[in-house]
């Protein structure tokens, strides 16, 4: 239509300077030492932090699976409601997302504390108290709570495209509930599942606030480790850059793994 490519010039400059160059700088620091000489040492040192990496991947995976299991029925039920009701429910799902995640996480701190509300209620019935905050379970809970809507929404988008008659046909042809689920619902909502998994896993594996607020000092994740190298006491840009690079590779791997299923659904979610 309007053939004026020059209009893109300011953005292209911006893109190169503030997206590509910073990533190049991170890569450069990852492969050099303090004096600027080439080294692989930063990447080798990461081996010492393998427990942190394993913990991050494990907790993020746990949170993703829990989100998926919890969201699947929610999204299905929502997609079968009348249009007006769907709109209200969707708003209810999105409303907490609009609150800053620091406030949402803070809310759980007062619930989970040793003399927090949950323990007080349990104590009323003569149970507990339990150590809930500053455990890995609390970190997973924080991830699930913060990112659950990111799973519900893409699943819901995929499921609204499933016609009721398809499900009825499966049931007419003798499929039980389990068969309908595994042979019809899950395959047809695969793009939503893939998008949901990325949208929960990526922020979970890279978070550093949730683990700090709910996990205390003992549940350090990759995000915490990176933050410590740049703004914390450790202060080692080179190691921090190497860690960032590895995290980026993990995320890209995860995305290329799930991208096989979906190519169109990103737009609807963003």
């Amino acid at each position: 239509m309007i053939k004026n490519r020059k209009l893109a010039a300011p953005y292209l400059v911006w893109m190169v300077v503030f997206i590509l160059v910073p990533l190049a700088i991170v890569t450069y620091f990852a492969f050099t030492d303090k004096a600027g000489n080439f080294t692989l040492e930063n990447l080798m040192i990461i081996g010492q932090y393998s427990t942190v990496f394993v913990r991050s991947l494990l907790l993020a995976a746990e949170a993703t699976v829990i989100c998926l299991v919890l969201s699947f029925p929610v999204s299905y039920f929502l997609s079968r409601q009348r249009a007006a009701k769907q709109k209200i429910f969707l708003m209810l799902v999105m409303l907490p997302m609009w609150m800053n995640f620091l406030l949402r996480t803070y809310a759980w701190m007062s619930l989970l504390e040793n003399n927090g509300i949950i323990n007080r209620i349990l104590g009323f019935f003569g149970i507990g108290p339990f150590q809930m905050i500053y455990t890995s379970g609390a970190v997973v809970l924080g991830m699930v709570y913060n990112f659950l809507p990111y799973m519900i929404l893409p699943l819901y988008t995929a499921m609204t495209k499933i016609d009721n008659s398809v499900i009825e046909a499966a049931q007419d042809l003798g499929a039980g509930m389990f068969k309908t689920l595994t042979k019809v619902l899950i395959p047809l909502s695969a793009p939503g599942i893939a998008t949901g998994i990325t949208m929960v896993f990526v922020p979970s594996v890279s978070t550093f606030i949730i683990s700090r607020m709910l996990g205390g000092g003992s549940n350090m994740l990759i995000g915490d480790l990176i933050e410590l190298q740049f703004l914390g006491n450790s202060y080692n840009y080179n190691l921090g850059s190497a860690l960032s690079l590895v995290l980026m590779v993990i995320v890209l791997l995860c995305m290329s793994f799930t991208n096989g299923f979906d190519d169109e659904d990103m737009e609807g979610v963003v």
Partner: protein
Amino acid sequence: MKKQHLAALQKVYLCLIFSFLYVPIAVMMVFSFNESKSRTLFTGFTLKWYKSLLHNEMILEALWLSLVVAFLAATVATILGVMASIGISGMKKRTQGVINTVSYLPVVNPEIITGVSLMMLFVVYVNVAHWLNSNPEVPGFLKFLPENIFGFGTLLIAHITFCVPYVIFNVAPKLRRMDVRMYEAALDLGCNPRQAFFKVVLPELMPAILSAFLISLTYSIDDFIISYFSCGTLQTLPIAIYSMTRKKVSPEINALSTIMFVAILCIILVSNALESRSYRKKRVKE
């Protein structure tokens, strides 16, 4: 299982999930009216935390900074993004693909990586500026680069950077779907290209541009992680909230959450009401 049982089960399940989503927020709201500083024992009703919040200089300044940065970043990002969308639409498919891939990086990358990489860029800049300014062999006219850049400027640059891609991904598809004949008709009817753009193309794109602006605004106000790495000693609202949560006991946070929740609820309800009203009007016209 009978159908009724299933329906009941469904209701119970939805109730459980929604209480999971809302109970923590409700608890915060209740405790914002709590007399004592305890986060767990309700001792009496008071509004004093709201009062002290409204006199809390740190929070008010942070809120003001957040609003200013969000407004500026969204405006610049929208202008940059719309220009880029139009420019890119005239390029070859392959070039478009490359630009889109790069633009996707800040969207798909974990926020911490975007934050850290921008911080490194600024750090490298500071080092270069410092070297230029302190090296006696460098001629004087090169010694003009400021060294203390961490603050408003870096914050704004970071916010613009993560907002522009959202603008492009909102506006570019709209532009692609637009009818070229409308633009050509305007030219045929005597508009010059500039007039045709401002009178035909821009109004057609306006809804997408507006929603891109609003998305940028909300992302910018809500952002913590990227700001955290690029703000220096400045405090946006999320960063102020973070420093408050570090102090543990601070019922003002609860009051702040309550105010924000109610404000968001109002915005959503009003925008929904407006939307359904314009929808009804459209139907009446048809």
